[in-house]
């Protein structure tokens, strides 16, 4: 078992004919994902990597119903494509694009809430259930299947940490990137709750960063979890008032500091790694303690 996606998940790629869309479609197919269609207005009828292209989501859904879609279109077009996917009946929508306007993101989230769609992103690497399905842009090679769930706010840092897990022989059930934007679809809690309910996830790694209070809110939920949670947070040395790459990664008005997050997580029983390479050891310890390793 994994969360959200597995080997049966049927996927559409919106913006499949762009450079990114084409490349990552091939990578997703290589990882085992069931990409059943691509959307590219005006290019319906063409084929990319063996995947049929449709002009609209509705046209694609008539041909074959998909549960998930991934968006690779430029930021200006994201809102329209996201609305199209949500209205078209997609239930898991991954928005890779960064620089989506804040108000567009809020509109997307409101519409998704109304239609009960889970949004991953914007500005995410996506999500993967290794050896089963990948919807996103992460390198296939660093993931192996297993029982550790990973949920992260940032991309490459997750790769760093997942690589270590993989090198240490610790496989992953599902790895989810929430996205680095100011407003993203899923919260840590949304994903932690699914990991908690997933019978084959035995521990969870949370990769956070400064800014906002997502980690603090997650801590409240973690207190109710039966599974061990290990965390690593980036931005310990970041000065206040500077936006560190991610729109949300900024210490404002004294809020969202590294210390505030660490205190909250530790109070919830989370093992917080102070250096990235400590994560795999902490995961191992937690699994041993739980008798799962």
């Amino acid at each position, binding site marked *: 078992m994994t969360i959200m996606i597995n080997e049966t998940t049927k996927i559409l790629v919106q913006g499949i004919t762009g450079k*990114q869309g084409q490349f990552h479609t091939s990578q997703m197919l290589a990882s085992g994902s069931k990409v059943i269609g691509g959307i590219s207005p005006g290019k319906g009828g063409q084929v990319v990597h063996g995947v049929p292209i449709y002009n609209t989501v509705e046209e694609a859904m008539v041909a074959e119903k998909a549960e998930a879609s991934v968006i690779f279109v430029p*930021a*200006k077009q994201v809102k329209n494509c996201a609305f199209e996917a949500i209205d078209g009946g997609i239930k898991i929508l991954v928005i890779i694009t960064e620089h*989506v*306007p*804040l*108000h*567009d993101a*809020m*509109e997307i*989230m*409101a*519409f998704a*809430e109304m239609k009960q769609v889970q949004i991953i992103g914007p500005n995410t*690497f996506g999500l993967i259930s290794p050896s089963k399905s990948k919807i996103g*842009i992460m*390198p296939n*090679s*660093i993931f192996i299947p297993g029982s550790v769930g990973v949920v*992260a*706010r*940032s*991309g*490459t*840092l*997750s*790769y*760093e940490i997942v*690589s270590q897990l993989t090198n240490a022989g610790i496989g992953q059930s599902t790895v989810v990137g929430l996205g*680095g934007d*100011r*407003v*993203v*679809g899923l*919260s840590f809690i949304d994903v932690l709750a699914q990991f908690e309910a997933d019978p084959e996830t035995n521990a969870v790694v949370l*990769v956070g*960063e*400064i800014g*906002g*209070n*997502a980690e603090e*809110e997650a801590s409240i939920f973690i207190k109710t979890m039966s599974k061990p949670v290990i965390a690593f947070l*980036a*931005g*310990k*040395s*970041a*000065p206040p008032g*500077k*936006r*560190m*790459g*991610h729109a949300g*990664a900024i210490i404002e*008005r*004294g809020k969202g500091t590294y210390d505030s997050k660490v205190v909250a997580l530790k109070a919830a029983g989370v093992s917080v790694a*102070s*250096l*990235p*390479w400590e994560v795999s050891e902490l995961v191992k310890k937690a699994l041993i303690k739980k008798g799962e390793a």
Partner: protein
Amino acid sequence: MKLYEYMAKEIFRNNGIPVPQGRVFTNAKGVRDFVAQIGPVAIKSQILSGGRGKAGGIKFASDPQEATEKARELLATDLKGLKVDLILVEQKLTIEKELYLAITYDGARRKPLLIASAAGGVEIEQVAEELLVKRLIDINIGLQPYAAREITRQLGLTGQIAKEVADIMLKLYQIYRKYDAELIEINPLVIADSQALAADGKMTVDDDAAYRFEKDVPLVEEKTTVEQRAAELGISYVELDGEIGVMANGAGITMATLDLINEFGSSPRNFMDAGGGSSREATASALEILLSTQPKALLINIFGGITRCDEVAKAIIQVKESIDIQVPMVIRLVGTNEEAGIALLREHGIESYRKIDEAVANVVAFVKAKGA
């Protein structure tokens, strides 16, 4: 992007929110005539930093002569390290009451958020939580009159003033939506001569949506030249004040790299997220930017996902061959096409690490050896 007070107020005025009578000046000339017309004034330096009042950026004058002098004074000042180029000369108000009103967003709830308080005029961080009225807004529905009315009730307002403040809220929300604002703040929203009006105005609009209103809002530059160049290349760059120039790919890993440099006893010169999937040219340009800030050493930390390690290696070699790099350069390279990248670097006499701790330890050691 932050807007100057006078710009925010112009937008307020154009959208029906009352503001005090005022005019912007770049020099003291003309202040005399203006003040002769409108009487006692407040003279407010137009800078983007907060805490302007405390720093002496606002002065009052009761006649044209005094106003001219104080305008000259302010225009000769450096406030919080920023030169005052512009002043806003405004009718002085007889304030009966100061409120606080802002619309921003709640990232966790994914919704617009209105914050109001009857205790305005001070920094909102200093207002007790129980004096704040917070209300999430459904972006599909928008702020509706009934909600504005309910907020004014919670603020303890009644009668005509309640109606005026509710009306300002509705208009402020329209501005918030129209200009893709991240934050609009009126602090204080005053009652003066029995009328509600915006005595101050802060507005931050969303850079990512700038294309939608760039015709209406003049661009304000807050960035240094290096940050501007980086922005033009689509690179996320923040200038810091340490020793080691850093390039990594991904905001999280870049932050973690800075943390490690600190952990190992040095400090970063910058935050630079060169992004995923950048071209060789973009990577080379990013490197050139880094060198331009004259760091004591360079650390490049690449986890190749979309980014291919061989492309990164080629960019590094290209820059090294075109520029005489005078500082030590430490490279950490793993991920997609890692072998090819490492081999390429080795061919050109550049050593690279696979483990991030080794890379950071080494670059810090270089800096310390140099400093010693």
